[in-house]
């Protein structure tokens, strides 16, 4: 069976390599990709959308409908992780630490719940003492990562970046908090419900902007129709519409990343993680 699989892989690989021979050269001006639409995008995009970054103009404006469903896919990934992994049953045995003395209690009775506060604190089963240096460095670093993430979202019109990248960076700052402290810190700071609502809200912002455009008498996601609603230069309305859409994408991706991480690392129990 292994031998058969190896032969199939080799044959498919050879077929693919044979197929690449027919490809146009890299950057060939006569390739089909460069003669139909690219010219229009390169020559007219800045004029039509007032956005200097062509990639953002294509992603969020010309192909806005496509990007909307990409956001929906990320949302569905978070939803699937939640539905498959979330486990609402409480774990039977728990570990507590008596903070003043450092004594560790192992509670096997599932009904006995100690009050966590000044005296006792929760402990993971495979607990490592939290390192002061790591905690301090991460505490200082996380705000800067989050500001950078917002910059990436807001500056996506002018430089590389946008909603997906910014959202992922913001989500990884939350994951860094969960790794450097513990998972409970993140779950306590931001409730599970909030993540769920934000994931849906991000997609809703995207779709909402499209629907508002329809109500203003244009096509779905035709940002130029938003001009009467927003004060300022009407020429920049497409850039502003794209910014709104990117913010929606960023919110959805942030929440989806956090949901996926929390559910995977704690097997859906949201109690202890890496």
């Amino acid at each position, binding site marked *: 069976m292994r031998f058969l699989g190896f032969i199939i892989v080799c044959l498919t690989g050879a077929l693919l390599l044979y197929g690449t021979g027919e490809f146009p050269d890299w950057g060939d001006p006569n390739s089909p990709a460069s003669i139909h639409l690219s010219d229009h995008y390169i020559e007219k995009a800045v004029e039509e959308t007032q956005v200097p*970054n062509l990639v953002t103009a294509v992603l969020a404006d010309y192909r806005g409908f496509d990007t909307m469903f990409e956001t929906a896919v990320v949302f569905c990934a978070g939803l699937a992780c939640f539905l498959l992994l979330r486990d609402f049953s409480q774990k039977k045995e728990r570990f507590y630490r008596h903070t003043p003395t450092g004594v560790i209690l192992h509670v096997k009775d599932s009904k006995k719940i100690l009050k966590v506060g000044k005296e006792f604190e929760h402990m993971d089963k495979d607990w490592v003492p939290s390192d002061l240096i790591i905690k301090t460095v991460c505490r200082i670093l996380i705000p800067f990562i989050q500001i950078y993430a917002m910059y990436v979202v807001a500056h996506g019109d002018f430089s*590389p970046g946008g909603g*997906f990248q910014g959202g992922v960076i913001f989500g990884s700052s939350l994951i860094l908090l969960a790794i450097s402290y513990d998972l409970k810190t993140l779950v306590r700071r931001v409730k599970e419900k909030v993540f769920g609502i934000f994931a849906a809200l991000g997609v809703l912002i995207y779709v909402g902007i499209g629907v508002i455009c329809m109500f203003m008498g244009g096509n779905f996601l035709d940002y130029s129709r938003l001009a009467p609603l927003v004060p300022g230069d009407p020429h920049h309305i497409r850039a502003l519409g794209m910014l709104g859409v990117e913010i929606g994408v960023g919110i959805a991706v942030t929440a989806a990343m956090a949901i996926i991480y929390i559910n995977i690392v704690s097997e859906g129990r949201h109690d202890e993680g890496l």
Partner: protein
Amino acid sequence: MHWPIDLIVLTFVIFCAIAAISVKDLLGTAILFGAYSFMMCLLWAVMGAVDVAFTEASVGAGVSTVFFVAAVFRTSRRTKD
């Protein structure tokens, strides 16, 4: 002398890909996937697709490595085949 940097990076990509499927330790595989994604990110940057490189760096090398490590943490570290 002009360095063929894309060829060097492409060699690293292929090495990382082969290593990732042949290593028995799944934690090592997760890290090798991270290295693979980072090399792909460099390759995109060499080709001038900075947006794609940015996405690859944040999603491929950053967050998906964390997801792999988290999944390995909750399953087994050794692979059977």
